[in-house]
Structure formats: C-alpha cells, structure tokens
C-alpha cells in the first residue's frame, strides 16, 4: 500500500537538489524553450489549470467534496446513525437513494458524513507531518554536524517503517480508533519532506545571496522565511498533493482492517468492510463508498500531476 512513486519522487528530488550546481548554460535551445518559462509559480499553476482540463475538473471535484463535507449535517437526507432494522440491506429506493446498510441506516447520508473523515485524514496528518519535516529539515540543513546526523538517521528509521504496520503498532498502544490513524500518519511520513528541505537548505546556504545576507548580519529567521522557504514552496506543493491521496487510501485500508474508525462512526473503508458480505443482495452498499474513494483519490492525483508538470519543469513533456 505504500506509495512507491511518492517515495521515489522524494529520493530523486532530494538527489537532484543535491546535484544541482547552478552551472546553467544559456544556449539557443534553452532560450527558445524558455520564452514561456518566465512566469512565477502561481502564474504557471493558473496557466496549467486553464489548459489542463483534467486538472481543472479534478479541482472542481475536490472543491465539491470539500463543500459536501463542510455542510454535510445540513444537507444529508436522513440521520446517518438512525437504526431501522426492518429495512436493513435494501437496494435504492426513493427514500434511501443508495439503499440501506446492515442496520438499516441510509448509505447516502453515511457516505456524505464519511467524506469528512477522508478529507480530514487526508489533510491534517499531511500538514502535521510536513510541518515536522520542514522544521527538522531546516534544523538539519542549518546546523549540520551531529544534529544533522541524528535527524537524518531518525529519518532513515521512519523510512524503514511501512506506514500501515506503524499504524497497527500505534493502534496496539493507544487503541483502535481514528486518532490512531492521525497519530500514526502524522509522525511517520515527515522523512521525505525533511530530506528535500534539508537538501534545499544546504544548497541555498552556499548561494551568494544567502551568504551575503548572513555576512551582513541578517537574522536567521529572516533568511529562513525570506530566502529558503520560498524556494522550497513549489516542491512542498507537489509533495503535499502526493501525500494527501496516499493518506486517504491508508485510512480507508486501516479502517477496512478494523484498525481505524470504529462503528458507529462512518468511514468509507469501514463501510466497504461492513457491507462486503451483502455484495450479492445490496451491491450499491459496497460499490458506492469504493467509487467515492476512487473518485476522490483520482481527483487529488490528477491535480497533483498537473501541479507537478506546472511547477517542476524537469518533468515537463
């Protein structure tokens, strides 16, 4: 379940930043290629969204899911927790558009509530882990020496843990619920970010403008926020869009295994798990949460691909 592409991308990116020596040759080919390259990151993203229809549609889908998640309690057709045993495992009806589950609860309503879980698990642990990664990467890159060595070995340790196994481990200690997944995903996946931020810091530290800033006594904080972080932002955006779908999938898998969300709360992975026995009689109950997951993850991945093409010119076709 590990997203190998994400891992490889993080490795490659860190290696590439390490290798970049700024010996950029201005040749005729480059000049021609760069006619359109003079825009800033944000402009490039805007242009990408204009020309890349798939990414644009993905963005709309994501915004729609976010709106549904935010306003879920207001727009759900039924109470997602109301048990109605006589009407359990029923196919779609006018009252229950996607039918009912094993306790007669409305699947559409549960699906809408479940989008909150997926979104929050996709976003919050990503933000926390990337925050940890940024801080540790900056510290490692700036301090060097022993601090750097220890942080990078810690990163090695984290990279060795498959996130699902780590989540199981955490679930043993703090119990099997959503918090487990939050904690596990937040503290395990900072290593890739830290590597990239560290590489960028080391590279920029050598650059004249940073050396000059240090030499005239500019505060470290200013250097970090004015010079180093802005240079990391494009990479971080790309990493962010890779982490989110991978976390969403991890949550659904863990909930499916019974490690994550517990009944009666809703999670799309848990819904698939609970309804799998009734695949023959009520297929919508299993199909709907699976398709919802697929659409959400695809949307994030497509948008991420578009952003990566727009931001990282070395990968542009």
């Amino acid at each position, binding site marked *: 379940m590990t997203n190998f592409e994400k891992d490889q991308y993080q490795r490659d990116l860190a290696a590439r930043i390490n290798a970049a020596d700024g010996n950029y040759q201005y040749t005729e080919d480059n000049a*021609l290629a760069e006619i359109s390259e003079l825009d800033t990151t944000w402009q490039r993203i805007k242009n990408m969204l204009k020309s890349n229809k798939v990414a644009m549609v993905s963005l709309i889908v994501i915004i729609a899911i976010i709106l549904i998640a935010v306003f879920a309690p207001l727009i759900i057709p039924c109470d997602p927790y109301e048990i109605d045993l006589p009407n359990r495992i029923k196919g779609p009806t006018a009252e229950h558009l996607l039918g009912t589950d094993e306790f007669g609860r409305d699947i559409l309503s549960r699906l809408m509530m479940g989008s909150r879980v997926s979104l929050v698990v996709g976003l919050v642990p990503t933000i926390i882990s990337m925050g940890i990664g940024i801080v540790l990467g900056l510290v490692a890159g700036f301090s060097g020496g022993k601090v750097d060595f220890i942080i990078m070995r810690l990163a090695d340790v984290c990279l060795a843990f498959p996130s699902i196994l780590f989540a199981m481990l955490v679930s043993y200690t703090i119990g099997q619920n959503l918090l487990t997944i939050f904690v596990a995903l937040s503290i395990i996946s900072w290593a890739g970010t830290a590597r990239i931020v560290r590489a960028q810091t080391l590279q920029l530290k050598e650059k004249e403008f940073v050396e000059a800033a240090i030499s005239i006594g500019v505060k470290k904080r200013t250097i970090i926020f004015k010079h180093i972080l802005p240079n990391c932002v494009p990479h971080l955006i790309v990493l962010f869009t890779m982490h989110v779908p991978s976390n969403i999938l991890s949550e659904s898998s863990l909930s499916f295994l019974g490690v994550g969300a517990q009944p009666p709360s809703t999670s799309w992975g848990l819904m698939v798990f609970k309804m799998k026995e009734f695949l023959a009689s009520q297929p919508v109950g299993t199909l709907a949460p699976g398709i919802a997951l697929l659409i959400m993850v695809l949307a994030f991945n497509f948008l991420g691909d578009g952003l990566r093409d727009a931001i990282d010119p070395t990968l542009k076709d």
Partner: protein
Amino acid sequence: MENNVKNTLEIKGMKTHFFTRRGVVPAVDGVDITIPKATIVGIVGESGCGKSMTAMSVMQLLQYPGRIVEGEILLDGENLVGKTKKEMCEIRGNDISMIFQEPMTSLNPVYTVGKQVTEAIMLHQDVSKEEAKRMTIDIFKKVGIPEPEKRYSSYPHQLSGGLRQRVMIGMAMVCKPKLMIADEPTTALDVTIEAQILHLMRQLRDETGTSIMMITHNLGVVAELCDYVYVMYAGKVMEAAPVKELFKNPSHPYTFGLLNSIPKITYTKDELYTIKGMVPNLQQLPSGCRFCPRCEKTMRVCTEKMPELIDIGGGHLVRCCLYDKEVVGAYE
C-alpha cells in the same frame, strides 16, 4: 552541376519555423549558405539568432514543433529536404556529422567512450567488431588522445572536458564525413584547451578535406579558424564575407557592433562598446530591417523595407540599406 560539385553544402532559401501554441516562430527565415569543399565556414551571431537551428535543420534533427517549411539543402548536389527518416539515418554520422557545445553531457554516461565511437562505425560501415575497435583506437590517436587503448574503456565522467571533446571529434570524423558541423565546440572549454581543439580541427580539415560548418558566437574563434564567415541576426544572414575581408572591412552595423564589443588591449576606452537592446522576439519582429531598432545608423527607409543581400565586391555580401544604391541615391 559543375558548380554543385565544387560545394559540399548549399543551403538555398531555407526557412525553419516553430509552430508553437503561441504562434509561429520563424527561427530561420530564408537563409542561403554555401560551404565549398575543404573549407571552414563560420556562422556567427548572438544567442537566438538561428545559427543552431540552421545546423539542426541541415541534420534534419529539428524537434517538434519545428520544421523546415521552405528551401533546399544540397549536400554534394543532393537535396536533403524531403529525404525519408531512414535515408537521413544513413547520411547522419556518415556524410554529415556533428559535435556539440557541452562535451560533458553529449556523451552517454553509461557506456564507455570507445563503445560509443565503435557504435558510429558499426552503423555505417560493414566491419567486424575487432576492426571497428581498431579504427576507434586509430581515430583516438589521430585526435590526440593519449593512451588510446586505455581510454577506449573509460567512461565519459573519467575524462576531462578537453579529452571528451576530442572523443566527440573522433566520433564525428571516424566515418570520414563530407561535412562536419561544430556547434560551439569550444564554448565550454578553457582557453588553452580551446586553442588545441581549434588547431586539431584545422589539421583534420587539411588531412581529410572535410568541410566544417563552425557555429560560434566568438569572433576570436572565427578569426583563428575560419575561411569564410556568415553573420546571422534574427533568423537571417546579415553579412557574409571571406574572414580577412570581414575583419578588415566590417560593413553591416551589426557586424561592426559585434567586432567593437570585443575588449581590446591596444586602446583604452572608458566603457566597452555594447550593442544596445536585446535580440528581438521572433514573433514580434519589427517591420523593415530586423536590426533597425538597435542600429545606430537607422534611416527612415530602414523601418519600411527589409534590404536584400547586396554584393559590395570581393565576395562580400551585406544586407543593409546603407549599401542599397537606390535608397542611398534617393536620399542624396
């Protein structure tokens, strides 16, 4: 026919355009270049003037979205435009070869340099592997690579920039081509190495009779090596002359500017001469003469009419209204 055989390469009215999403970019816009047998012809200009694109057009290695839209490229009288991919593969590396600016990246890092040269031989000549290896070592000797047997199995990253460029030249010369195109071959090298490489190229020309198209922005290289020079600007030839004539009598204001922007030790001036402005965007070319917005001798007529190449004697051609008798006559 008689005339054709005298010239290795004749480019006639070639236009290479890039069909980008933002419109057509005329990178090469009607260029005539003639390279006689066993001659070294220089093509000079700033970045973006179309000199590299001219070379890539001759090789027919233009990348999408670029293509030749007009004109002829005659190699020994045979038109290359319209040849199939397969036919061009037989010509490239065999009749025309090319060396590039960056010897660091122009060799494949995962193969030994020997293997890369052998590959070129095996592609075009029907020889055994051992024979190809022997030929490779011979050419390494010829281009002045010390310990050629040992270097045969070196990887590119184990060689210095100068040696790598010698390998590239060896690879280009190994099939005894009619024409070698050198695209800024010394720009990335140290000055001392540059002189050695230029010397080597001249020596190879003398020995094998291969014509060389030398693309550079460095007028020093031209003075050192070339017999004849074309000065390009914004996709057009602005001036063409035998090298001595050009340096003695630069006639186009652009050439004049180029020559004056070389620092000279013989006279001191407070400020180095520069050509003002920048290479124009090829999609928004000025009407009339393309150089006119940067020219110091602009006349009104310059903004109205693109002059033709005018022969001012001694094989010296200039594209400038200053030499257009009609125009000048009308003014006087």
